[in-house]
């Protein structure tokens, strides 16, 4: 945050230029308290985005809620006269044999991805914060997985994890390990998508945690070193505790992002084989769009459960962030 979005760093040059072209303010104007701009002007600037939010966020969400509360078929979906059935779709979803596995997979996927992304990201952030030759360049290269289109990452991993011709099995073979059916065996598919997703998520953790590390004063480390603290002690006594606010934010944002991961799983396994890598996100899509006979109602119901989960963690995130902003 400190480097680029923080306005003052950037602004110094443009501000000077801007000030040169604008006439210096007359003294009385500056002395007078700045009158608050008329509200209508403020809201005129906000009107487009407000309208946009209503039309393209609130309305789709409302339509989704409506979908989940009616008994839609393909015909009534087009004609728009589906009968209201209340929470029937939610009951269907809860009774579905896929519900328990999907819940378990969503929890596992999210928890395992978060732990590894955070741990690897933190280790790399600490490593890269020791200044050495090329450290800035290499750190930038670490961003690549995060910038690639998800379909590119997912299809590359698919081919790397291919049972017969994949490079991962070839490497295992070289080490004398039997080949693994990464994507086609129900006991490995979830692991495979988790590995790919960790790879994509590490850069985000690295960058955010790295910028958090920059705000820990170097003098603390120097003092600790003088007192004879080793590297390991310095990490657990200084870095980790002082990084806690940034860690909380990183993990919460990661949680919200990971809950809604869809592309990777869908492209690599479609949630299969036999639902072995199905999460709420892929199940919802599977119900709504994955079959010849779409089940829009239950699909929307699963989606709405996901929205509720995301918003609960979102509210926690906002609360934590506000508390940190105040302190």
């Amino acid at each position: 945050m400190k480097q680029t979005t923080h306005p003052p760093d950037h602004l110094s040059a443009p501000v000077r230029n801007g000030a040169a072209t604008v006439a210096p303010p007359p003294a009385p104007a500056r002395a007078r308290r700045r009158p608050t701009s008329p509200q209508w002007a403020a809201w005129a600037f906000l009107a487009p985005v407000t309208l946009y939010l209503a039309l393209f966020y609130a309305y789709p969400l409302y339509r989704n809620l409506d979908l989940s509360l009616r008994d839609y078929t393909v015909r009534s979906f087009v004609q728009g006269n589906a009968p209201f059935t209340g929470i029937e779709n939610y009951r269907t979803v809860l009774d579905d044999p896929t519900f328990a596995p999907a819940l378990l997979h969503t929890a596992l996927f999210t928890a395992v991805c978060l732990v590894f992304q955070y741990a690897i990201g933190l280790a790399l952030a600490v490593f890269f914060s020791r200044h050495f030759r090329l450290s800035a360049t290499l750190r930038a290269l670490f961003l690549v997985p995060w910038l690639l289109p998800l379909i590119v990452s997912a299809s590359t991993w698919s081919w790397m994890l291919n049972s017969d011709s994949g490079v991962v099995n070839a490497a295992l073979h070289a080490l004398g390990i039997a080949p693994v059916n990464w994507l086609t065996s129900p006991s490995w598919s979830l692991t495979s998508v988790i590995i790919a997703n960790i790879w994509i998520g590490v850069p985000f953790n690295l960058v955010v945690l790295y910028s958090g590390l920059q705000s820990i004063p170097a003098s603390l480390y120097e003092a600790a070193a003088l007192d004879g603290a080793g590297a390991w002690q310095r990490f657990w006594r200084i870095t980790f505790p002082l990084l806690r606010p940034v860690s909380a934010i990183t993990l919460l944002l990661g949680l919200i992002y990971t809950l809604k991961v869809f592309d990777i799983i869908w492209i690599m396994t479609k949630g299969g084989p036999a639902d072995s890598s199905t999460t709420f996100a892929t199940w919802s899509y599977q119900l709504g769009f994955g079959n010849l006979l779409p089940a829009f109602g239950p699909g929307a119901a699963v989606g709405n459960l996901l929205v509720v989960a995301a918003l609960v963690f979102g509210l926690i995130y906002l609360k934590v962030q506000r508390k940190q902003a105040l302190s």
Partner: protein
Amino acid sequence: MNRRTGRTWWKTALGLLLTAFMLFPVYWMINVSLTPDRDMRKSPPDLFPTHGTLDGYRTVLHEQLPYLGTSLVIGLGTVVLTIALSAPAGYALAKLRPRGGGILNFVLLAAQMIPGIIMAMGFYAIYLSLGLLQSVPGLIVADSTLAVPFGVLIFTAFMSGIPGELLQAAKTDGAGALRTFWSVVLPMSRNAVVTVSLFAFLWSWSDFVFAGTLVNGGAHEPITLGIYHYIGNNNQEWNAIMATAVVASLPAAVILVLAQRYVAAGVTAGAVKD
């Protein structure tokens, strides 16, 4: 300095090793894109494209150019729409102190947490009744939802740093709010415009969920669907698939090389408070 470099060379070596490990999938994508068909199923696979072929890229030129063109149009459209919506909003939230601005800020943050497939389903229902399915403008609007809340956040943070005296001076010179925004605030916010544009373009270029739901099977499909159809057809020409993936990754590569600092800024924006 020399002594220092001498002591840290092993860190550089370790750093290089870690980076190589992390970027191996990217290398592998390039390697496979150059592998001829007959070597594709070879075991063990060739680690280097010693018998490299450009067949995969030739296929891309023949089959994927329309998809790439569509993605470019959609990306640029998303950028224009995102800037047009989020820059004025950022200005109002940062400088004009609207009543209820806090609520709007909250709504924007909450909006970013809604999973994409839920939005896609809602858009599908709406576009179906409006007849907007399989239309490029429809996809642009949907893709812009990925970037607009982020854009407002960046513009608000950035424009808060513009000194109030400057705006006051413009006002004293007789400039209205619109004039001030257009001739003073916007030119000064060039960095924010660049950051938001980059991410808006990258996100819409990379979008798969909206494309798969809203324009699947249409006359104009983006490159993400081009790749997806390749895989879905049980295509065995993995060199062509990976060549398409390499081409689809080019914007990300260009952005990383030319605008690295904006990227780091975008990743950390909002995540870290100083």
